[in-house]
C-alpha cells in the first residue's frame, strides 16, 4: 500500500505541475487528500506491519501521520484561499511541491532504517525550498538560500552521524542500519562512537525539528513562506525532525550512553528556551514570533525527553497539541495579512474589531499556546514539570519556568496588541475585507481539539503514545 501511496503522490504531483489548469489542479489536490486519508486509515488497520522492507507502521508514525493528514486538509484549503487574491502563475508549482512535501514527511514518519529516514529528510529540503521561494522576493530568496545551505550542512552532519553508527554496527557484526538492529546490537558497541553519532544526528536533524543549534533555518523559512506552508513546516516538519532524533535516541537507550544523551537533550532544550525567550522579547514580526514559539516548544520537548519517566509521554502529547495550535495561528496570521496587509505587530491592531472571528482565534490561540487552562498544553506542560520535580531537577525546573515567563509575557504582549490596540500606522489603515468567517472554521476546530484534550484524552491516543515509548527505559 505504501508503494501505491508514493506512486499516487508522484503522479498527482506531476499532474499538478504539467497539466496547468486551475480546476484540474484543485481536483488533483482533492484526490491527494483522499489518498492521504485512505492511507491514514490503512495504517491504523495494519499497525505494526512492515512494507517494502524499509517502512514499518509503528505507533509514533501513526500519531504524527494522523496529525499531518488533518493539518494537510486545512493547508490545502488555505492554500486555495491564499491564491484567490494572487496571480496564479505559481499555483501549479506550489501545489506540485506541496504534494511532494507531504508525501516526503509521511515517508520519513514510517521509515524504519536510519538511511531511509535520511533520504526522506533530504527530500523535504528539496520540496520545502521550492515552497519557501514561492513569493520570489529578495527576502524569500535569502530565506531559501539559507534554508538550502543550512539544511544541506545539517543533512551532511547527520550523514556523518550515520557513518559513525555504521562503524559501530560493523564492529558488532551487524550489516544493516534498521532501528531494530541498532537497538539490539548497540549495547555492545563502542560508546564513544555512539556519542559522536548521536550528537551529529541531533545537530543535523535540529534543522528540521527547529531545535537549538540549527533552529534559524526554520525561523527564516516560516517567516518567508506562504502562511499555509509556514503551518506545515512548523508542525509536520517539526514532528518529522523529532521522529528522526527520537528513533535514534530510542535505539541507543539501552546503551551506557543513555544518561549522557539525556544530559545533552536537557542542555539543548534549555538553550532553545533561552534563545526563544531572548528573541521573543524583541520580535516585531508576527510569523517570526510564532516560529520562535516553535523553538520554545521543541526546547520543552527536548527537556521532557531528557528527564524521562512521564516526560516521554508529555513530549509526544506536547508535539501533537502544539501542531494544532501552531497551525491555526499560522493560518490566522495569513488571514490577518490579507486584511491588514502587514506582518508587523506595530502596524497591526484593532483586529478584534476589524475581523472578530480572527481576533477570537488569536485570543483562544494565545490561551492555548501559553498553556493556560483549559488548554490541553497545560496538561502536557504540567506533566513535564511534575517529572522535573519528581526527578529532583530543581535547577532545570526554575530556569525553564523563568524563561517561559518571559516567553508568555512577550507573546501575550504582542498578540493582545494585535487584537485590541490601535495600530501605529501612517495615513489611513489599509483594510481589505476579503476574509469570510467560514474561512476561519479550521482554526476553531483545531483549537477546539486542543481544549478538548485538557478534559479528555482519547484512549486510542493514550495507547499509541504508550506504545511509542514502550522501548524506552522506565
Amino acid at each position, binding site marked *: 500500500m505504501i508503494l501505491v501511496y508514493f506512486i499516487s503522490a508522484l503522479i498527482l504531483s506531476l499532474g499538478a505541475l504539467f497539466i496547468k489548469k486551475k480546476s484540474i489542479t484543485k481536483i488533483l489536490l482533492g484526490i491527494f487528500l483522499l489518498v492521504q486519508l485512505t492511507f491514514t486509515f490503512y495504517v491504523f488497520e495494519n499497525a505494526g506491519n512492515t512494507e517494502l522492507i524499509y517502512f514499518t507502521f509503528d505507533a509514533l508514525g501513526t500519531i504524527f501521520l494522523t496529525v499531518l493528514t488533518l493539518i494537510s486538509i486545512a493547508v490545502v484549503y488555505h492554500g486555495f484561499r491564499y491564491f484567490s487574491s494572487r496571480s496564479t502563475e505559481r499555483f501549479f508549482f506550489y501545489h506540485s511541491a506541496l504534494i511532494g512535501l507531504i508525501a516526503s514527511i509521511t515517508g520519513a514518519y514510517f521509515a524504519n532504517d536510519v538511511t531511509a529516514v535520511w533520504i526522506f529528510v*533530504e527530500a523535504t529540503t528539496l520540496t520545502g525550498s521550492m515552497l519557501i521561494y514561492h513569493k520570489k522576493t529578495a*527576502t524569500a530568496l535569502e530565506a531559501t*538560500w539559507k534554508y538550502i545551505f543550512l539544511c544541506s550542512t545539517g*543533512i*551532511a552532519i547527520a550523514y556523518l552521524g550515520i557513518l559513525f553508527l555504521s*562503524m559501530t554496527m560493523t*564492529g558488532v557484526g551487524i550489516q544493516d542500519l534498521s532501528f531494530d538492529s541498532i537497538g539490539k546490537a548497540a549495547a555492545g558497541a563502542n560508546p564513544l562512537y555512539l556519542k559522536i553519532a548521536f550528537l551529529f544526528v541531533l545537530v543535523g536533524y535540529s534543522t528540521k525539528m527547529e531545535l537549538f543549534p540549527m533552529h534559524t533555518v526554520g525561523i527564516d523559512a516560516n517567516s518567508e513562506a506562504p502562511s499555509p506552508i509556514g503551518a506545515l513546516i512548523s508542525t509536520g516538519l517539526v514532528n518529522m525532525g523529532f521522529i528522526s532524533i527520537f528513533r535514534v535516541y530510542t535505539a541507543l537507550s539501552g546503551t551506557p550512553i543513555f544518561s549522557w544523551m539525556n544530559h545533552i537533550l536537557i542542555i539543548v532544550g534549555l538553550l532553545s528556551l533561552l534563545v526563544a525567550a531572548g528573541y521573543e522579547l524583541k520580535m516585531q514580526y508576527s510569523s517570526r514570533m510564532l516560529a520562535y514559539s516553535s523553538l520554545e516548544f521543541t526546547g520543552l520537548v527536548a527537556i521532557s525527553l531528557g528527564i524521562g519517566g512521564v516526560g516521554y509521554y508529555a513530549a509526544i502529547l506536547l508535539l501533537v497539541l502544539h501542531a494544532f495550535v501552531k497551525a491555526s495561528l499560522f493560518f490566522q496570521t495569513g488571514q490577518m495579512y490579507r486584511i491588514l496587509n502587514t506582518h508587523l505587530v506595530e502596524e497591526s491592531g484593532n483586529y478584534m474589531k476589524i475581523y472578530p472571528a480572527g481576533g477570537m482565534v488569536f485570543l483562544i490561540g494565545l490561551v492555548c499556546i501559553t498553556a493556560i487552562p483549559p488548554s490541553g498544553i497545560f496538561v502536557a506542560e504540567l506533566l513535564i514539570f511534575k517529572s522535573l520535580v519528581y526527578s529532583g531537577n530543581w535547577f532545570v525546573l526554575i530556569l525553564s519556568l523563568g524563561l517561559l515567563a518571559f516567553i508568555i509575557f512577550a507573546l501575550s504582549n504582542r498578540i493582545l496588541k494585535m487584537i485590541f490596540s490601535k495600530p501605529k500606522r501612517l495615513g489611513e489603515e489599509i483594510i481589505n475585507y476579503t476574509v469570510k468567517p467560514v474561512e476561519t472554521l479550521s482554526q476553531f476546530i483545531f483549537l477546539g481539539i486542543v481544549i478538548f484534550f485538557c478534559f479528555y484524552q482519547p484512549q486510542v491516543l493514550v495507547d499509541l503514545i504508550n506504545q511509542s515509548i514502550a522501548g524506552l527505559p522506565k
Partner: protein
Amino acid sequence: MQNFLIVTFALTLIYLSNSERFRSFSNLIAVQGLILFGIAFIELKEVHTANLIFIVSETIVFKAVIVPVILHRIITHIKIYKVHSKALPGFYLLLFTIIGLFLSIVLANALSDQFLDTVFLTIAMFTLFTGLLIIITHKLIFSHMIGFLVIENAVFLFSLAAGKEMPMLINIGILLDIFASVLILGIFINKIGSQHRDLMADTLTTLKH
C-alpha cells in the same frame, strides 16, 4: 601511493584556505575531485563494479569536471575574481589551518579503531575543519559555497573511512553530494547572482532575528 594522494589532498586544503582568487578555488576543487578519484580507486578496488562506476562518475565527472565548470561560469557571470575582504588576515588563516591539521591528527588517533582507518579519518576531519574555516572567515557567498563543497569532500572521505563495509552508504553520500551541490549551485547561478551583484554575505541579512 595512497599516502601520497592523501598528503597532496591536505596540501590543496592548506592552499585553498589561504587562496584569494576565485579561479584558484575552482581549480583546486577540480584537483581535489581527481585526487578523491585516485583515493577511492585504490581504496575500493574490491567493491562491486557497479559501485565502482558510480564512485568514478561522482569523482571524475561530477567533482572534477561539472562542478568546476559551473564555478567558472559563475565567476564569469558575477565578474568578481578575487576575495577582497575576509574576517581574518591570511597569516592567521594559515595559523588556524595548521592548528586544525594538528587537532585532526590528535582527534583521529583518539578515535582510532580497528574498523576505522586513522589516516582517512585525519584527512576527513581536516577537510571538514577547513570547509568550516572558509565559511566562517570569508564574507562572500561564493566563498561560502566553496566551503560547502569542501565539506562535501570531507563527507566523501568520511564515507570512505567508515563505510567500506556498507557500500550502499557511500552511494547515498554521493547522492547527497550531487543533490546538495546541484541545488546550491543552481540557486546561486540562477537567482542570487542576478539579485545580489556584490555577493557579500552581509547583503543577505534582511531577515532579522
